[in-house]
């Protein structure tokens, strides 16, 4: 068994698509109209056939309180691997991305946590 798809709930799919592609650097994989919403997934350009990230609409009434509570306590909704957290932190901050946790080295793991502007916090991580 492998992880085929994971998802984050986003406030606005179009805005999310721009952030996840233009800013974070993912590429669009599927974009299928589904009534008012879209089946919208992105993948890493390094692994076009790898795990897809579904940018899922936040419409369900349970989603907003869930996201609000997670963000208040700084808990990320997803974690993405990068080569160098500090370099990525610098690059993204230049682009105006807001971080709730600056790079933190914890033994072999380095992490940082950013705001995806669509209601979620996202962790980036690398290990030595």
């Amino acid at each position, binding site marked *: 068994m492998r992880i085929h798809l994971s998802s984050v709930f986003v406030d606005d799919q179009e805005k999310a698509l721009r952030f996840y592609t233009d800013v974070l650097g993912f590429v669009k994989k599927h974009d299928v109209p589904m009534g008012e919403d879209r089946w919208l997934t992105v993948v890493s350009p390094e692994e076009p056939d790898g795990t897809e990230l579904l940018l899922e609409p936040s419409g369900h009434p349970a989603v907003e309180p869930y996201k609000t509570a997670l*963000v*208040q*306590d*700084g808990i990320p909704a997803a974690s993405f691997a990068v080569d160098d957290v500090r370099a990525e932190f610098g690059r993204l901050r230049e682009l105006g991305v807001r971080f*709730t946790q600056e790079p*933190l080295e*914890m033994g072999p793991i380095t992490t940082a*946590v950013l705001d995806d502007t669509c209601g979620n916090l996202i962790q980036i991580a690398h290990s030595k």
Partner: protein
Amino acid sequence: MAEDVFKALADPTRRRILDELVERDGQTLFEICTRLVTKHGLGLSRQAISQHLAVLEAAGLVRSRRQGRYKFHDVNTEPLERIVTRWLRPDEPESAP
């Protein structure tokens, strides 16, 4: 107030939390929990850490602030200064007149 400070400082987990906040102010609950687990092997629940933070906050040693949708915690050392000065003797005069 002073008793709250002593009570807050009596717990080793709460002292660790202060240690970590001294290293970097403005931490989320998530960052504090992560630091306690990875740096100190303290695998407490987020709820437990949250309760420890509440004790520190009641004693005035930690201040939490909401900034937009986030909540950050800062260390506040003022109550410690009152404790330190409490038992400090005034300097003895070097020679009696």
